[in-house]
């Protein structure tokens, strides 16, 4: 097999190279396009070689579009999504793993179900609830006949209304309700030595002290990994921010990017501007990955030495 190793390495290298080209070529094309001017593109189409208009395009992004404000929106959504998801997942997993929860496995199965039912396929019902948070309550009153009773007694019907569409809360809340983080923390807690909890109890630490003094410091890599993953997914969300925000000032950067292409047919979109926007918008998640990459790997590899 030693003779074969070299040729095997060459083949493996070639496959890797093909994969890299396949992934990087579109990125390069986007970058190259971002350096051309609109007029150049109208004359020559999309070309593979770079031009000298990158700075001008970036300046136009900051002066002529709402992308900077929308990036702030994206940042708020992504950071809060990541933070709240981390906290909720951590607490939920703590309860599921360390306490004898009645129907614990059922609860866990329900949490896992949210992974199999992503926001994209329940976007319509989620929109309905976001349009009026009380709609489930109203429906309950209607279906149980309570409203009929109220109507006949007082001549009024209960119909509460509170829309969270076009608010940051409305953008974030549905994204947070997701079981991946709970799953991640649960798996991490399960590989911790069982005696750790007992040792802490013998040392006199109650559930809260154990959570804060022992579990939290040990979970740091998992926290970092989950934070990065959730941040990235929050930053790149498209469908939900598209339907949940109606005014440009509340839209996120990714939605704003898509809106840069004109709605009317027949007009050639300003691809250099859009690509420059794409480059600007990806800088934040790229920085994030560069800074926290170490933790990303450590947090997803579950063993703690």
């Amino acid at each position, binding site marked *: 097999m030693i003779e074969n190793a070299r040729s095997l390495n060459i083949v493996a290298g070639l496959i890797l190279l093909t994969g890299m080209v396949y992934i990087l070529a579109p990125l390069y094309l986007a970058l190259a396009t971002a350096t051309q001017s609109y007029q150049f593109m109208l004359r020559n189409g999309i070309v593979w070689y770079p031009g000298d208009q990158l700075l001008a395009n970036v300046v136009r992004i900051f002066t002529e579009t709402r992308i900077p404000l929308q990036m702030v929106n994206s940042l708020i959504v992504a950071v809060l999504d990541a933070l709240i998801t981390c906290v909720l997942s951590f607490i939920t997993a703590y309860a599921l793993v360390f306490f004898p929860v009645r129907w614990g496995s059922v609860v866990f199965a329900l949490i896992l179900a949210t992974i199999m039912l992503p926001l994209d396929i329940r976007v319509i019902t989620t929109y309905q609830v976001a349009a009026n948070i009380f709609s489930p309550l109203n429906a309950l009153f209607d279906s149980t006949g309570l409203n009929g009773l109220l109507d006949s007694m007082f001549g009024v019907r209960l119909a509460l209304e509170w829309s969270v569409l076009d608010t940051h809360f409305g953008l974030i809340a549905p994204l947070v309700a997701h079981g991946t983080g709970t799953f991640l923390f649960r798996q991490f807690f399960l590989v911790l030595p069982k*005696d750790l909890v007992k040792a802490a*109890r013998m040392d006199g630490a109650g559930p809260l002290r154990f959570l804060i003094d022992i579990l939290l410091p040990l979970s740091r890599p998992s926290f970092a990994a989950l934070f990065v993953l959730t941040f990235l997914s929050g930053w790149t969300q498209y469908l939900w921010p598209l339907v949940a925000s109606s005014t440009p000032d509340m839209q996120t950067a990714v939605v704003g990017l898509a809106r840069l292409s004109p709605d009317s047919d027949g007009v050639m979109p300003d691809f250099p501007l859009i690509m420059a926007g794409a480059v600007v918008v990806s800088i934040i998640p790229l920085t994030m990955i560069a800074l926290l990459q170490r933790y990303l790997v450590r947090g997803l590899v579950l063993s703690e030495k």
Partner: protein
Amino acid sequence: MSAIDSAIRAAATSIVLDGVSKSYDKGAEVIPPLSAELRAGEFTVVLGPSGCGKSTLLQMIAGLERVSAGAIRFGSREVHELEPKQRGCAMVFQNYALYPHMSVFDNIAYSLKVAGMARAERLQRVEAAARMLALTGLLGRKPGQLSGGQRQRVAIGRAIVREPGILLFDEPLSNLDAQLRHDMRIELAELHRRIGATTVFVTHDQVEAMTLADRIVILNKGRIEQFDTPRTIYHKPASVFVARFIGSPPMNILPVQGDGSTLRLASGEVLARSSLKGSYQLGIRPEDIQINNGPLQVKLRYREELGSHSVLAVEIAGNLIRISTPFGSDIGSRDTFAVNFPPERLHLFDAGDGRAIPYAFTRAKALADA
């Protein structure tokens, strides 16, 4: 004697188990009602095969598991409703269960910190414990940077720093290699002699039990088979279970029939004289069988040379038994040779429940003499 020693010695109390039992919701009874008194300052080893309930028993004493019924008293104080920290006992775990993110100092000091002890006193206590366990140079390290034996000592330090009157050990040596286990055994014995805490030590290793214990509790399926000194347990096992569990190689057990004057194997060989009638189990330790002289013919199946002694596996009327002899004992090249079962070395057990029948042979001898 440092402050820790005297504080622990003063705090050491007896442990009284009064009809303690444990069963789980689904109805499985792990420990049927069990009573015992472990004396103050005594080193008690709870010995049994895995799954016999010994760890459960220890955790009930510690307060990590609730008792289903019965009472546990430390001295005269009822503790079975108290949280672990209120009981005044400390525990060393099998996998050490050190906090991986804390330094050795913080690991040892954690219980004092939780209890709200002032910083200066904490420092003093940890240093005293560290000195006692030769950990002084390692206080700044993380558990991951320590060897197995050092981690074990940190775990012990974490236990004794609170000056508990009662120390509980849950198979603390089973993760160490043979040499280290031997060294730690000696260290533990010394530590116990020095601090004098009432100690309960759970293990499945009979060597640990025999060497460390003042008294051994042998558990089988949650029941106490025997609770006595290592010496008595070895020489007067209370049941077939104990006889087989203690001693290496284990005691030979042969089914015999009593006809009023002799005990015989089913095939007719007379193994002993006795006035008993009925079915019994006859036991004899491998090292008590005399070879090359005697009324019984055995056939050699194989021999193991172990350096200090030899173990011969022989067949007697279809039953395989082991004989332990001094190394290289000459049985020649013969396949069959003679052995003798000295009557004073025989043990007799009931054929049904396996309980020992005490003085079976001394009484028989007395009857014969009369």
